[in-house]
């Protein structure tokens, strides 16, 4: 199954992002899965400050706000559905904190001892939620269709080994990663392969 190719037009939103930044990746992934055309410019500042989306002449900052804006243009209404029980907000916090920890680890050149403990703290609620969802027959945080909450949490889940949290300890998260990877239009970034 393949996703319809998103059309990048002169009026398409423009992402100012950085290829190795997980937040920029979240935006690119979101646009690809939603089927929204997105042009992107490499901007190293995004590594620290986060990506910026230029849409209809306005700058949008913050990954959650950017994804919300993209979801307005998504073909499937499921993308704009807020996840139950505040999970969109929780996933945004997980994603932001994970990104900060990961930058610190990568800048240090080797994983810091304390980062694994904080990764546990961040990702355990996600693992518990995904296990409950699986039992209820849902692959994603909000239901059977991925939504913004899933995009926000995905890089933290898929790159958790960067913080020394191996995937054998989080089977429900592993299942979630596999489900999103299999979604039509999935994109890769360094550390997140696509081979399913």
């Amino acid at each position, binding site marked *: 199954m393949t996703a319809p190719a998103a059309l990048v037009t002169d009026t398409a939103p423009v992402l100012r992002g950085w290829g190795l930044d997980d937040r920029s990746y979240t935006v690119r992934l979101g646009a690809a899965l939603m089927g929204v055309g997105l042009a992107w410019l490499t901007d190293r500042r995004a590594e620290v400050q986060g990506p910026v989306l230029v849409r209809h002449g306005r700058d949008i900052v913050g990954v959650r706000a950017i994804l919300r804006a993209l979801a307005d243009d998504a073909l499937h209404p499921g993308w704009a559905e807020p996840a139950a029980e505040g999970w969109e907000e929780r996933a945004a916090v997980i994603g932001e904190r994970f990104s900060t920890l990961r930058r610190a680890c990568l800048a240090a050149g080797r994983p810091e001892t304390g980062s694994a403990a904080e990764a546990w703290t961040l990702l355990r609620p996600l693992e518990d939620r995904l296990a409950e969802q699986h039992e209820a027959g849902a692959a994603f945080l909000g239901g059977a269709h991925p939504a913004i909450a899933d995009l926000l949490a995905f890089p933290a889940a898929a790159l958790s080994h960067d913080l020394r949290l*191996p995937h*054998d300890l989080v089977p429900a998260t592993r299942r979630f990663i596999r489900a999103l990877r299999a979604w039509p239009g999935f994109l890769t970034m360094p550390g997140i392969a696509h081979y399913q």
Partner: protein
Amino acid sequence: MWTPIALSEDVAAGTAAPARLGGAEIVLWRDGDGLLQAWEDRCPHRGMRLSFGFVREGRLTCLYHGWQFDASARCRLIPAHPELKVPGTIRANPWHVRERAGLVWVADAADADALPTLPDDTPMRGLRSLAVRRPRAAVAAQTGIGAGGWIWRDGALIGLHGADDATSMLHLALPQSATAEARRRTMGEATALRDALEAA
């Protein structure tokens, strides 16, 4: 000795999954027909974790250079040398593996005696595996799980293995006849057990 190491349903057909037992890294994988394998999680070529790889046409393929291993653990194709008849000495290092009561059990080659005898033959289905940030010995002492790595409690099978020196994993399975309500309740109890074990 056989050790429960994962839920059967957590290794889907055509996928590979990582596991660790006492620090030893293992890849569990199934071919498209559902046949399960457990090998050392290391490609004999460059040491890449095979659990990062993918399953194609009944072979586990290393993500690094694409070496393909069939169900006998033999390397069957080296993409950089497609005409080469790969020597039989190039192979992954297999563990013994069985599935029983909804769980995956492994044993190393030198220590694969009979599978443990469970209290009855009720068909079981895995419920959840969850990590506990406590050493296996501490979890075993607090839960009463013996050296065999499992206990039958309140109609649920609870398996235990030590992933590394500091972390254990509990594996829960219930009879296939368990209701959805019973499964939800047991899942909540398991989470509470994990939290209590870590707080102790």
